[in-house]
């Protein structure tokens, strides 16, 4: 049994394009392929640290923020009249600024579709927060209890998460 023997099963035979036959009336109309350019291939993911670097950094910065906040409040409660109380009170802003820089850097590393999703989610969050806070403000005017302004940022963050989920699903 030689290798030259034709395959008896026509379904197994290789399919030839129509234009390859010498008597073919068909012309190959494929355009010429552009010059090959070697695209840089990103290195394979090396470790959990590389994959979750932003999340880990964000978590550590938030932890630092909480620790410094609790420490600052504790120190201020025991020294309410010290002259350096302003410095201690404003100290938690430093790790908060670190959180901000990590967040902004993470945003710049998103790809173009993720940036669009985030833009829509931020817009949704801003508008919906305005709607809810104004709505509740009108209700406060007619007698509902006053809520602290510190509720505004958590509300915005929750709505941002909701917006991200909505607009991510829209592109799925």
């Amino acid at each position, binding site marked *: 049994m030689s290798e030259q023997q034709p395959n008896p099963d026509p379904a197994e035979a290789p399919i030839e394009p129509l234009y390859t036959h010498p008597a073919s009336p068909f012309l190959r109309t494929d355009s010429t392929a*552009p010059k090959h350019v070697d695209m840089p291939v990103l290195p394979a993911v090396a470790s959990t640290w590389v994959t979750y670097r932003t999340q880990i950094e964000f978590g550590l910065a938030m932890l630092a923020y909480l620790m410094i906040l609790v420490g600052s409040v504790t120190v201020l409660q025991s020294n309410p009249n010290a002259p350096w109380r302003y410095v201690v009170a404003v100290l938690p802003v430093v790790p908060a600024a670190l959180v901000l820089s990590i967040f902004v850097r993470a945003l710049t590393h998103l790809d173009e579709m993720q940036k669009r999703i985030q833009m829509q989610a931020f817009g949704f969050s801003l508008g919906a927060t305005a709607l809810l806070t104004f709505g509740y403000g009108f209700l406060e005017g007619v007698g509902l209890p006053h809520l602290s302004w510190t509720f505004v940022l958590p509300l915005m963050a929750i709505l941002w998460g909701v917006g991200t989920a909505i607009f991510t699903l829209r592109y799925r």
Partner: protein
Amino acid sequence: MKNRLRVLRAELDWSQAHLAERLGVSRQTVNAIETGKYDPSLPLAFTIARTFNRHIEEIFEFNEKVPAARGLAPTRAGL
């Protein structure tokens, strides 16, 4: 905009994740482009074309129903 990305990817037996890694985007973005829910930017479209060693027109097909072309621009031959 219709495209042949899924076909070209299948020809090379690449996963969405592999193509995403080569393009430097997320797998979700590759999926959204394949399903036609997201049109890539011109630089990304060129990167896709170069990755598959094709012309852009061989991958992406402009939807003629979009009322963008109000009469074709005069060509050199028509002047």
